[in-house]
């Protein structure tokens, strides 16, 4: 009996709830520190990015209309599914140079972070909204609405935790997003897309591309139907490039350098950063009896 032949995984990208190959047909071949190939990874093109934005825009209306409770349950479901696939992610992280201990920690943190932000879905609105005591006869309140389609440049040094830590608050707040995965550690991003796909998350709410920042950064900044950018690599030149490209449609560009292994990233202010404040006014009829003191 000969030894069984392994089935190797084909890594594809994730757009609109499907797993296409890059339309460009290109691939790249990242290596780990031992100079082992991580696989033939899709080298996504500008066209892939545009397709992903179309999918994200299409999904935005439905996702932002979902009840907060429903979004909360779906994020929690992701944590459940990820928990069930821990071993797969630990193996992939070790393949991408993590020690077993670090890999386990990263997967645990990622699961816990999903649970953390799942809990925020139906709470942040109450923290950041207000009823405003205007000096006229009006009922006036301010509430949050999601900014729209957010492009996330996932952290380059982290295959899973960097992606999850920012995706979670952004979709918890009702946005849809397009994520550019870590260029040199892309494996977990696509496996995570499989988690998303199994978690009742509507297709298009999260889209994941693999490829090169150097090719896609200016496109991310200049795309007119992207409303905000989340950047987490802390490289000044890249941030400036994003900011400059983002001017034409006044994208909200947010940059974070949180240490993801600590709890400092666990706060609702990240959710708030991808929200718009809407203030609504309505007159109050002043009727005589309103002044009676019964």
């Amino acid at each position, binding site marked *: 009996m000969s030894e069984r032949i392994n089935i190797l995984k084909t890594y594809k990208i994730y757009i609109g709830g499907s797993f296409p190959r890059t339309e460009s047909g290109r691939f790249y071949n990242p290596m780990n520190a031992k100079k082992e190939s991580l696989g033939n990874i899709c080298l996504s093109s500008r066209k892939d990015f545009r397709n992903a934005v179309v999918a994200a825009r299409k999904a935005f209306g439905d996702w932002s209309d979902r009840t907060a409770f429903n979004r909360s349950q779906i994020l929690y479901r992701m944590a459940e599914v990820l928990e069930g696939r821990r071993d797969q992610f630990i193996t992939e992280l070790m393949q991408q140079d993590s020690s077993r201990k670090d890999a386990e920690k990263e997967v645990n943190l990622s699961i816990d972070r999903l649970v953390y932000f799942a809990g925020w879905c139906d709470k942040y609105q109450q*923290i950041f909204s*207000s009823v*405003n*005591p*205007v*000096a*006229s006869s*009006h009922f*006036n309140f*301010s509430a949050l*609405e999601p*900014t729209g389609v957010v492009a996330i440049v996932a952290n380059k040094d982290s295959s899973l935790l960097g992606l999850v830590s920012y995706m979670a608050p952004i979709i918890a707040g009702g946005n849809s997003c397009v994520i550019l995965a870590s260029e040199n550690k892309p494996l977990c991003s696509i496996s995570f897309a499989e988690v998303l796909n199994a978690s009742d998350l509507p297709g298009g709410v999260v889209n994941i591309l693999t490829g090169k920042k150097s090719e896609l950064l200016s496109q991310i900044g200049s795309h007119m139907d992207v*409303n905000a950018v989340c950047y987490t690599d802390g490289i000044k030149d890249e941030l*400036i490039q994003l*900011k*400059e490209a983002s*001017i*034409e*449609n*006044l994208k*909200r560009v947010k940059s974070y350098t949180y240490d993801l292994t600590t709890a400092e990233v666990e*706060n609702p*202010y990240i959710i708030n950063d991808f929200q*718009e*404040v*809407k*203030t*609504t*006014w*309505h*007159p109050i009829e002043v009727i005589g009896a309103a002044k009676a003191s019964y």
Partner: protein
Amino acid sequence: MSKNKIETEKMNWEYAAAPESASHIQLKEKYDHFINGKFEKPSSGKYFDSINPATAKKIAAVAEGNSKDVDKAVKAARKAYDNVWSAMPASERAKYLFRIARLIQEKAREFAVIESLDGGKPIRESRDIDIPLAAAHFFYYAGWADKLDYAFPNRKPKSIGVAGQIIPWNFPLLMAAWKIAPALACGNTVVLKPAETTSLTAMKLAELIQESGLPDGVVNIVTGDGKVGAEIVSHDGIDKIAFTGSTDVGKLIQKTIAKTDKKVTLELGGKAANIVFEDAPLDQAVEGIVNGIYFNQGHVCCAGSRLFVQESIKDIFIKKLQDRIETLIVGDPMDKNTDVGAINSKSQWETIQGYIELGKKEGLEIFQSSCKMPKDGYFIKPTLFTKVAQSSRLAKEEIFGPVLAVQTFRTVDEVIEKANNTPYGLSAGVWTDKGSKIFNLTSRLRAGIVWANTYNQFDPTSPFGGYKESGFGREGGLHGLSAYLKFD
């Protein structure tokens, strides 16, 4: 009975003149910059004229700033920040702001008269809206100064440093208050540049600030045109930019500071949809539409400049609107009867006229009030265009004048689609008597402020600011604080 019928057609609606007196105001011939608590001559030695747009005559000369003046002002602001203001207990900062609020109330009449003389807005508006709201803004933010920890749980808010603030000409003193009050309450110092056509109330505010005893350099005011604004934006000593004005200039500012760590808030243009459903209280809606577009001659970033009327009531509603427009009094801003005052400047008058000509050329149907027009100064009749296509420039571009573009719709989905089909997202209006429809509309319109069965209401406690290309950040309310704070 019939002989008692009022023949409105023949009635003469003229009101006797009721001019506000300007005898009590004190205006200098020349205004210098306000730097480090003192009035300083411009280093260029040059002054430019501030014109009363209702008469096209000069009322005062104002210092023309340059990079040297800006540099001086920024240094004064930095010194005041480091040595005095950031070290002062927050409750003491608050007292200065309360004091400024009170002084504005005491001098409200003088401010109102100068605002109308310098900017052309009807005295009724400057008296009842601009000046009281400016005082209220200082009063509101004064109280926040020592309560910031409660506004941002778990965050340890801190002041940023020196804020550069550039404001427009449509609400001169009010915009100065919107900018200065929260900045100071949060512990920052400021360099403010008023718009070049409307610097006078800002300089009167400088005199008032001097009188209040506010430490030198906490507020500095440099006058001049856009070049002075550009100097402020690019100055290395500025930590935060707050700008209200056009979207084009907002984008230029973004470009200038992209390479820096400067924080920025932008309150930019708008092209608001004001939507009237067939079940709306029509007479109230007419008032709201008129207020939405002709308030302050339409020089309002949140003006309801696109009217959407449901097709079933189109004819009756437009007729009512036209009848109401006919009764508007256009003329002397100083007259208490005046509804629509002077266009702020000659160049803005030309811009608006250009759009009116364009509308005619595009073949749109035009209606203008047949009101009497003043002989001198810059005035434009309240104007209405019907049969406007979604693709018309009058439906797409911000005109910043008393020009309303009317479109019609049949269904809720259609009007939401049309209303949101703009790069702007500052404000919107909805008129219907049905509560569920209001909430459907107010939650689906992509705009920062939505007025339902009302329009153009403002309050210091109420956050103001836009979605999309109308800018980012909020002014007013608790939400207006974060623009002037940094967090760990």
